């Protein structure tokens, strides 16, 4: 017969990965049932690399473009919105499908709820005005500043667009410099240009 501590030590090497993963999956369902899930997120493939999309019960709260540190983004969301966050591609099926369709050129507008809680004040007004720029059209930082209530705050409008938490769905890529220059883009200028070409806004 093996020594007591030798038998006990075998438990350390016993595989529990599968059972623990199944337990965790059941737990997430129970948490949803008890309304303890505040944020769900999923990774989405796109022609511009992997995106990260996060949603609250109100709607999409953040879309992070390729090139941003996903862990950092998630930690920031945990701080600003809620740490009760779960990865759930299934709960984000509708958004992921619409993004796919959009990138394939088969969708012109998004039919998803939005949660604006990461933007405030003037920036929020700029972004809400941006959300109304139609597919195929472009606008300018100056015009967005004006729509947000301060025609002279062009630079502030630019900053607001640079801080857009929900790019693509809130189409900040449709906002150009007043003279027609491309301006900037968080996902890189080639992405901005490609989106505008796909939408037929530029040649």
């Amino acid at each position, binding site marked *: *017969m*093996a020594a*007591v*501590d030798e*038998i*006990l*030590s*075998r*438990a*350390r090497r*016993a*595989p*529990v*990965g*599968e*059972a*623990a*993963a199944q*337990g*965790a999956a*059941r*737990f*997430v369902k*129970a*948490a949803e049932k*008890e309304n*303890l899930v505040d*944020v769900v*997120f999923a990774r989405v493939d796109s022609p511009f690399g992997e995106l990260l999309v996060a949603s609250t019960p109100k709607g999409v709260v953040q879309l992070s473009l390729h090139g941003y540190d996903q862990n950092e983004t*998630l*930690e920031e*969301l*945990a*701080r600003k919105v*809620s*740490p*009760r*966050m*779960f*990865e759930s591609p299934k709960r984000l099926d509708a958004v992921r499908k619409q993004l796919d369709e959009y990138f394939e050129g088969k969708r012109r507008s998004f039919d998803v709820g939005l949660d604006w809680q990461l933007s405030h004040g003037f920036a929020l007004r700029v972004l809400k005005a941006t959300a109304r720029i139609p597919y195929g059209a472009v606008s300018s930082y100056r015009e967005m500043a004006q729509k947000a209530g301060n025609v002279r705050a062009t630079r502030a409008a630019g900053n607001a667009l640079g801080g857009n938490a929900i790019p693509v769905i809130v189409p900040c890529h449709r906002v150009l410099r007043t003279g027609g220059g491309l301006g900037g883009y968080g996902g890189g200028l080639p992405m901005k240009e490609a989106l505008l070409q796909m939408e037929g806004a530029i040649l």
Partner: protein
Amino acid sequence: MPRARSTHVRPPPFQAFLDGHREEVYRFLTGFVAPHDVDDAFQETFLSALRAYPGLRNGTNLKSWVLTIAYRKAMDSHRGRVRRAMPVDDLPEQPSRSSHAEDHALWDLVRALPDKQRAAIVQRYANGLPYKEIAQIIECSEEAARQNVREGLKKLKGMMT
């Protein structure tokens, strides 16, 4: 409970916390409660952690934190067990389930030990925790944690012979 420290590390997204600690919690519960109570205690542990999570200021010692919750939930379910006679469906897989019948026999004996001895032995052997962490979880001194393991082992050896 882990002591509060002055360095504030915010807890990570719950998904990362769950992924990082679910196996330790599962291993502990498998050794500590009856096989058909493992899943319930696992759910209770993480639901309780999730409820408290937004109020957590300090994310530096989440392993001890969640294993402390698991310990408390497991004691509840262990006591509840005596009163309820529940139908048993599928038994969850347990680490001690191997080809060794002696493993089962011994782990059954472990589950008959007093709470602190049982917890200390499971954390020591199934999770490989240092005595310092075991002490935090079962709320005693490091020396008392050591003593609990020694006492438990002595009883097990006595029962096995």
